[in-house]
């Protein structure tokens, strides 16, 4: 890659460093691993840069971060640290059980951090992309390589599970 091309790469993607790290951090739940994942993602991104046809650079980079993050998760899964994921299994039976208002108002940052970290990774990433990165459904679909309908249902489930986790924590503390 010639220096001008590299400059263009850096100008396009270095501004998304925090978004990349935030997603990686929420995927891996570890600072050091997130940094490794981000570095790996940028190395892949620069290799694929020739195939980048402009457009949404943030979504493009985040989809690479996501892939790098999942590769990392699979590797660590071999060492038995992650739980397997099944959409049906993780569906919540009672759809009316939204998070209780009072509970949410009492929830501290620590509660929310723990509840979000406890979510299955697919739900966690969708919620992070939506609520922390402010991505649209369409952009989340692009990052995850998913149909928009799946994005919608994952978000809905993620929110319900989060509410449930919070209320379980709330009950324990009471």
């Amino acid at each position, binding site marked *: 890659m010639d220096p001008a091309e590299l400059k263009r790469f850096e100008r396009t993607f270095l501004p998304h460093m925090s978004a990349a790290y935030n997603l990686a951090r929420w995927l891996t739940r570890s600072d050091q691993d997130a940094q490794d994942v981000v570095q790996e993602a940028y190395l892949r991104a620069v290799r694929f840069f020739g195939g980048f046809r402009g457009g949404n650079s943030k979504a493009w980079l985040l989809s690479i971060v996501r892939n790098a993050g999942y590769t990392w998760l699979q590797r660590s899964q071999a060492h038995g640290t992650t739980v397997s994921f099944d959409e049906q299994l993780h569906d919540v039976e009672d759809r*009316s059980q*939204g998070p209780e208002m009072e509970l*949410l108002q009492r929830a501290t940052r620590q509660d929310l951090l723990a509840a979000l970290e406890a979510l299955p990774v697919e739900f966690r990433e969708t919620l992070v992309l939506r609520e922390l990165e402010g991505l*649209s459904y369409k952009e989340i679909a692009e990052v995850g390589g998913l149909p928009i309908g799946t994005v919608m249902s994952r978000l809905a489930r993620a929110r319900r599970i989060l*509410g449930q986790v919070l209320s379980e924590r709330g009950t324990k503390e009471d």
Partner: protein
Amino acid sequence: MACPEKSDLIEAYADGELDLGSSLEIERHLADCKDCAAVLEGHRALRSALGTASLYHDAPAQLSSRVRAAVRKQEKVFAASPFFGWRWLAVAAPVISLVILGWSLVTVSRMPSSEDLLNQEIVSAHVRSLMAAHLTDFPSSDQHTVKPAFNGRIDFSPEVKDLASEGFALIGGRLDYLDRRPVAALIYQRRKHLINLFIYPAEDGAGERAVETSLRGYNLIRWTRAGMRYAAVSDLNLVELRSFQQALQE
């Protein structure tokens, strides 16, 4: 129990992802359905809790430089030539500083000249005049109406020529601001093409050769005549713009 089929839609509604029609439909539904209204409330409470809890993980300060270095190492941008390896840095330092000096000289000499800046300003003024309702302050095809209209608005009297017989119809005049001073702008039309002719006094009075240039797709001719500066700018082709200039000079 919230309506199962509406539940996802309510979230999409709260996320601002529904089109207007569907949003209105959901709003009507929410007015009637207490369960769905409760779902919406819960959703909003969760969002505001997540939003205010600062759960965002900002990248550590050194990560950016670490990533940059890794990318550059992989791409071998600097490692490609032995001159840029660290070992050679001591030897190469004087060369590098010469290169930097040379580069900065080039950069300085490539800074836009005052001529370039004026040309850019003229084209910008032309483009701006074509935007909504800014073209003419006093629309008139009569040179005897346009010329007096400038009186008292600017401190000089621009020559206003009727060039309809040469195929350039006068359509009005306007005050504009160029080169740090108010200027007269005359607007002519050739077929569908509009021409802005800017006129203002030449401060130094010196005669200046005509300048032709093309900028962002617009042709521009500047010249000085009888102590006044003229600038004609248009998307008209250069040949016809030249004949416009000649018609003015006659």
